[in-house]
């Protein structure tokens, strides 16, 4: 049998397997989605946890549909903005769906 020194790595494999399974239908692995979501973090906080009282919208826990609606409105220009309309146009509708699901799931 394997010696005890393998346990941390076995546990790691288990975690990764579980995570990969949960996202089997997603076009991106969790790592890639987390890295994509991190592009929002510079202004909206790590994992969407914005610093309080700064005026940056905290994305963490916002509704998935709400995020998709707002980003779509920024992209189309129906929601005016200073900068978000320019940034939203850099992401595809599929990426916006993934990001919305990601931030909606952050507690």
């Amino acid at each position, binding site marked *: 049998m394997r010696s005890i020194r393998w346990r941390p790595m076995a546990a790691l494999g288990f975690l990764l397997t579980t995570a990969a399974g949960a996202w089997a239908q997603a076009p991106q692995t969790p790592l890639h989605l987390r890295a994509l979501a991190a592009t929002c973090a510079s202004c909206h906080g790590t994992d969407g946890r914005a610093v309080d009282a700064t005026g940056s919208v905290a994305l963490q826990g916002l509704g998935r549909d709400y995020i998709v609606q707002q980003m779509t409105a920024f992209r189309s220009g129906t929601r005016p903005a200073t900068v978000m309309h320019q940034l939203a146009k*850099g992401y595809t509708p599929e990426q916006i769906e993934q990001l919305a699901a990601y931030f909606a799931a952050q507690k």
Partner: protein
Amino acid sequence: MKRRQLIQAGLAGGGLLALGGCAGLGALPRHARVVVVGGGYGGATAAKYVRLLSDRRIDVVLIEPNASFVSCPISNLVVGGVKSIDEITSPYDRLGSAHGVRLARDRVVRIDANAKTVALGGGSSLRYDKLILSPGIDLMFDAVEGLHAANEAGRIVQAWKAGPETLALRRQLEAMRDGGVYAITIPEAPYRCPPGPYERASVVAAYFKRAKPRSKVLILDANPDVTSKAGLFKKAWTELYPGMVEYRPQHKAVAVDAKTNTVKFDVHDEVKADVLNVLPPMRAGQIAVQTGLANANARWCNVHYQTFESTAAKDIHVIGDSIQIAPLMPKSAHMANAHGKVAAAAVVAELLGLEVNPRPMLNNTCYSFVGDDSVIHVASVHEYVAAEKTFKTVAGSGGVSSARNELEAGYALAWARNIWADTLG
């Protein structure tokens, strides 16, 4: 014991498939170690995100000589007298307490890319599996005759690395007589923070307008035109500071005379100023140059953009201002933070045997103050294009402010507080 057997079964079965090339999981070093050199926007972000994205499975050591982080963004407001240095200074300790990054307050004196070790000034040596190098810029004082000595003497400052010189420049401006001239020289692009010199000129003008209204701001630019947000800056100078700000393109500084506070140019007549702020040409930080990584014009570090791995050394990833930039990629704090995340994700993927992201993304937002409560921005979104092996801006994305406005003054400060937390917290 049952649980352990289950875990092992999972690893032996579907686990290997899910992990792709991870038959080599056994080859994963028992304590894979990432060493990050430089705790600026790039390095501190990379250190934190290696811990986050690996779910703390990878050890991270961050080597940084300074006791605290002093932000270059917003430092112009310290120069302008509306913020204190304390307001742009943050501690490093949360990287340790919240994320388990090991902090080494030291300087790297040598990197051995073959042995995969870094030697520290304190005498110790550290092994790495992956090195993330974020050394920032080296100011090439010797490119401007007389500047090195003038800077050492504290006579002519750069204040382009935030810290003591930021305060020194502020003191010089405070000591200047009303009716004096502040002159800033700008090197040829690329240099750190393209809009930064023009923002500095603007906030100094705002200070003069408040306190020394007969004074002048002179911008002496080696470039043929304002390199960032040109229309917005020029409009602000004309409308907010009529007769006070003068812009002169194609003025490449070649020498200074500290005794007379004079700067000489390659073709134009010399200029004398009461406060002379000379920004020399810049290149990658010294440790990158000395390690042989600055292989673009002996100034900047070429990288494979998908992972930010150096083209000159395996397992060394270079990020931030020191890289040879992809088209339309600014040397900015926001961009360094973004590099840090892409490099962190790539390093985590490689060390854990996962697929490296085939299409990493970056974005950038740079706010510039043109007055105490008036701000403009430039923004962009960049995607990695595998066929061209570089980052390109996403068509239709990005742009600048429609006009200077007060709303973005609040957003600029919100941006700062959030990116400080994202980088350090």
